[in-house]
C-alpha cells in the first residue's frame, strides 16, 4: 500500500515541479529522490511498517513476494533514472511530465503485483499502460513516434477490451471478482469459464508481447524514443508478467492441467519466433525488441510451471533481464548509429563501456557467472519440476543457443571489427553507475541467494 500511494502522490509532485521550475536537472533530482523514497517505503512495508491502513475490502493483498518484486522493479527504475534520466531531456521540453508519467506507471505496477480482485487487475494494467501511450508519442514531431503511439494505443485498448470481456464472463459464471473466490477447479467447468480464461490469457499475452500477439512490439519499441523503449521493455514488461503469474496462480491454479498446454504452445512459439526473427535484424534497437519477445518466451515458463521455483525464478529473471537491458539501452541511447556496424571498434575507443556491454549481453544470453544464467536456470528447473511436456525445455535451450548468435554479433562488432570513433560523450558518473550495474549483474550470477533469501523469509 505504501508504494501505491506514494508513487501516485509523487507523480503529482513531479507535475508541479514542472510548473514551479523549468530547470530540467531539478526535475531529475526530484525524481531520483522520489524513487529513493519509494524504495524506502516499500522496504519498510516489507519489514512490517505499513504507513497506510486503507480498507480495500480484500481487493489488494500484500505478500512479501509481491513486495520483493516491487523492490526489484523500483531498484531497476532507480538505475534507469540514474543512467538515462538525462537523456529524456533530449526528447522534449516537458521532462517533469515524463517523470510524472513514469511514477504513475510505477503505481500501476504496484497494483498489478498485489491485486486479488479482477477489477484491481484491470485497474493496475490500465494505470500501467495509459501513461505509456503518452510516453511513446512524446517525440511529437517524429512521425515514427506518433505511429508507434497510435499502434500501441489501438492494440492496447483492443487487448484491454478482451480482458474486460474475459472478466465479465468469469463474473457471469461465478458471481464474484475475487481471484481466490472464483472457486474454479471443482466440479464441471462451464464453457463460459473456459472462454473467460482464454480471453484473459490472450489479453495478458498481448501485454507481455507473446507470440502470436506480439506484432505491435517491434514497431512500438523501434518507433518510441529510445529512453522510453528501455523502460517499456524492462520494468513494465516484468510487472505485466507478475500480473500474469499472479492471475493464473491465484484464480486458475487449481485447473492448471486444463490450460497448461495452451501456455506451453504460446511459450514455445514466442521463443522460436522471437529468436529466429532477432537473428535477421540489422538494427540493434530492433534486435533488442525481438530479444525482449524471446526473453518473454522464457519467462512464460514460470506461468507454465506454476510452482515455487518458477515464482522465485521470475524475480531473478526480472532483475537479471531488466538490469542487463537497461544497461544495453543506456549505451545504445548514446550511440548515433543503431546498426550493428555502428558498434564496430567500440572497444578501442570506449574500453570500459564495451566491457560492460559485453557483461550485459552475456547475461542476456544466459552465460554462467552472470545473472542471466540463474534466470534461465530457474526457469528450466521449474519447467522440469513440473514434469509434463519435456519438449518445451528442449525448445527453450535450443532457442537460448540461437540467441547467442545475435547477442554476440554486438560483441564481435565491438571487439573484433575495425571502426571509426563513434564519438560518444559519456560522463564519469555515467560510467561509474554502469559499472555498478555490471557488478550487480555479476554478483547475482555468482550468488543469487541474497535475493532469494528475502523471498523465503
Amino acid at each position, binding site marked *: 500500500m505504501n508504494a501505491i500511494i506514494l508513487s501516485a502522490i509523487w507523480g503529482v509532485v513531479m507535475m508541479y515541479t514542472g510548473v514551479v521550475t523549468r530547470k530540467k536537472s531539478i526535475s531529475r533530482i526530484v525524481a531520483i529522490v522520489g524513487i529513493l523514497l519509494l524504495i524506502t517505503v516499500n522496504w519498510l512495508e516489507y519489514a512490517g511498517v505499513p504507513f497506510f491502513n486503507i480498507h480495500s475490502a480484500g481487493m489488494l493483498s500484500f505478500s512479501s513476494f509481491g513486495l520483493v518484486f516491487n523492490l526489484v522493479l523500483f531498484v531497476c527504475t532507480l538505475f534507469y533514472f540514474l543512467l538515462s534520466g538525462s537523456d529524456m531531456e533530449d526528447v522534449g521540453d516537458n521532462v517533469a511530465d515524463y517523470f510524472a508519467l513514469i511514477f504513475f506507471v510505477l503505481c500501476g505496477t504496484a497494483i498489478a503485483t498485489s491485486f486479488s480482485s479482477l477489477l484491481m487487475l484491470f485497474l493496475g494494467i490500465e494505470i500501467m499502460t495509459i501513461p505509456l501511450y503518452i510516453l511513446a508519442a512524446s517525440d511529437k514531431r517524429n512521425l515514427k513516434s506518433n505511429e508507434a503511439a497510435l499502434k500501441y494505443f489501438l492494440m492496447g485498448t483492443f487487448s484491454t477490451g478482451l480482458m474486460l470481456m474475459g472478466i465479465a464472463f468469469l463474473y457471469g459464471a461465478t458471481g464474484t471478482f475475487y481471484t481466490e473466490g472464483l472457486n474454479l477447479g471443482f466440479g464441471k467447468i462451464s464453457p463460459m469459464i473456459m472462454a473467460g480464461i482464454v480471453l484473459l490469457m490472450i489479453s495478458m499475452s498481448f501485454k507481455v508481447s507473446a507470440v502470436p500477439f506480439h506484432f505491435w512490439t517491434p514497431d512500438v519499441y523501434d518507433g518510441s524514443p529510445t529512453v522510453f523503449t528501455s523502460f517499456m521493455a524492462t520494468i513494465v514488461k516484468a510487472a505485466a508478467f507478475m500480473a500474469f503469474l499472479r492471475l493464473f496462480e491465484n484464480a486458475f491454479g487449481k485447473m492448471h492441467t486444463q490450460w497448461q498446454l495452451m501456455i506451453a504452445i504460446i511459450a514455445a512459439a514466442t521463443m522460436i519466433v522471437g529468436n529466429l526473427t532477432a537473428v535477421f535484424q540489422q538494427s540493434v534497437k530492433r534486435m533488442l525488441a525481438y530479444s525482449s519477445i524471446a526473453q518473454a518466451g522464457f519467462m512464460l515458463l514460470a506461468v507454465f510451471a506454476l510452482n515455487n521455483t518458477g515464482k522465485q525464478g521470475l524475480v531473478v529473471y526480472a532483475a537479471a533481464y531488466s538490469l542487463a537491458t537497461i544497461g544495453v539501452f543506456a549505451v545504445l541511447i548514446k550511440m548515433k548509429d543503431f546498426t550493428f556496424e555502428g558498434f564496430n571498434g567500440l572497444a578501442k575507443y570506449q574500453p570500459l563501456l564495451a566491457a560492460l556491454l559485453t557483461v550485459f549481453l552475456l547475461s542476456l544470453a544466459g*552465460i554462467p557467472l552472470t545473472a542471466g544464467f540463474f534466470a534461465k536456470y530457474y526457469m528450466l528447473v521449474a519447467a522440469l519440476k513440473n514434469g509434463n511436456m519435456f519438449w518445451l525445455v528442449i525448445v527453450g535451450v535450443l532457442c537460448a543457443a540461437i540467441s547467442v548468435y545475435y547477442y*554476440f554479433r554486438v560483441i564481435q562488432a565491438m571487439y573484433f571489427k575495425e571502426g571509426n570513433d563513434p564519438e560518444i560523450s559519456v560522463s564519469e558518473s555515467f560510467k561509474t553507475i554502469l559499472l555498478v550495474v555490471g557488478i550487480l549483474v555479476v554478483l547475482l550470477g555468482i*550468488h543469487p541467494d541474497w535475493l532469494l533469501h528475502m523471498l523465503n523469509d
Partner: protein
Amino acid sequence: MLSAFDNFPALLIWFPLIGGVIAFLLKQESSVKTWAMFSSIMTLVVMGVSLLYTDPKHYLLNQVSYFWLKDLGSSFGLLLDGMSRILCLLTAISFPLIFAATWNTNYKNTNSFYGLMLLTQCGLMGVFLATDALVFYFFWELALIPVYFLASQWGGEKRIQAAFKFFIYTFAGSLLMLIGILYIYLKTADQSFSLFSFYNTVLSTKEQGWLFWLFFIAFAIKMPIFPFHTWQPDAYEQSTTAVTMVLSGVMVKMGVFALIRWLIPLFPDAVKNYANIVIGLSVVGMIYASCIAMVQNDLKRLVAYSSIAHIGLMSAAIFTLQPDAMQGVMIQMFNHGINIIGLWIVVELIEQQTGVRKISELGGVAQKAPILAIMLVVIALANIALPLTNAFVGEFLMFSGLFRFNAWYAAVAGLSIILAAVYTLNMIKNVFYGNTNQVTEKFREITIDQRVILAVIVVLVFMVGVFPGPMFQLVEQATDVLFKRISAK
C-alpha cells in the same frame, strides 16, 4: 606448512585465476609476458608438489568442498584423484611450454591475450577438478568464453566466423547437457548437485537412454567425434598457434575426461546399449580423418585431422568398457597433449621463418636445420605410436581393449595407424627432405631456447615411453574406482 586451507585443487584454480586478472591490469608488454610465464610456472610447481601427496592419508589436501549456493544444493567441490591429476598435470605443463614456444610472437593488446590465456587455464583446471555438476558446468563454460575471445581477436582472416562456429556448436551442446544435469539433480535423493549424489541416483534404462544423448552430444562436440567435428579444422587453422595448442592439446581432453568422469558411471546401461553406435562413429571418424589428412596440403590442417583420428580412438576405447583400455585412454590423454603441442611448435617455427604452411611449397628444411629435423622426427614418430615413445603404451592398451570387444572394429581402426604413418612420413619427406627451394633457402637452425623447449618435449616423450610406471600408478586406482561404480549400478 600445508593445512586443510591451502589444499591443491583450490590452489590450482586460484593461481591461474588471480594470475589472469593481474595480467589484464599490467600495461607493459614485456612485464605481461614475464608475469604470465611466472604465474604458469607457479601453477606447475603447485601441481608438482601435489604429486608427492597422492596417498589416501592426505585426503584433505586433495579434496575440498566449500559452501556455495547452499539453497540450491550446490557446493564448490573439487577433487584431485588419479585421473584429474594426470589432466591437471598436462594443463600445468602445457601452458609454460606454450608461453615459451610463442615467446617471440607479438600480439596487439598483449595484456588481454595473456590474461585470457590464464583464465582459460583456470577454466580447464576447474573442469578437471569439479565434483559438483553445477560447478562443472560453470567451468565448462568458463573455459570456453576466454578461448572464444582468444580465437576471434588473434589469428587468420576468417577467424571471427571460425571462432563463432566453434562457440555456437559447443554452447548448444553444453545447454543440452545442462538439461541433463538439471534432470538428474531433481531426481537425487537430497536435491544436490554433488557428483556422488549423482552416482547414487537410480535411473531407469529409458531415462538413461535419452540422458545419455544429452550428455554425449555435449562431449562429442568438444572432443570432437565424427560427425560433430566440422568446427575443428577451421578453428585450428584460423587461430593463432598458441590458441591452437590450447585447443588441441588440452581443451579436447575436456570431452574425453567428461565421458569417463560423468557419462560412463552415470549411465552404464545406456553406455552398453549404445556402445556399438559410438564405437562405429569413432572408427568411421578415424578413417575419415586419416584419409583427409593424407591429402591435406596445409600443415595446420594436417595436424588438426590427425588429432581427430587420435581422439576417435580414445572414444572408441572408452566405450569398450575394458579396464586396461580405460587406463590406456587416461595415459594417452596426457601423451597426446604433449605430442600435439610438440607438432604445433614445429609448425610454428617453420611458419615463423618462411611464412608458409603449404607442404608443397616447402622442402629440404633438414639440410638447413638438422636439429629441428631430429626433434620433429621423434615427435612425429611418437604421434604415430612407435614403441619406446610415450603414445605406444596408451595406443597398445586401447587397441587390445578394442580387439577384445570386437576384432573387426580393431582391424578397421588399425588401418588408421597405417594411414597415420603414411601422412606423417609423407609430410616429413616433403617438408624436411628433398631439395631446398627459394622459400626454404634462407632457413636458419633453431635457436638455443627453441631447442630447449623441443628437448623438454622429446624428453617427456621418451620418459613416459620407457618408464610408464608412475603414470600407471596414478590411473590404476582411478580405473578401479570407476569400474566398481559401474558394477555397483
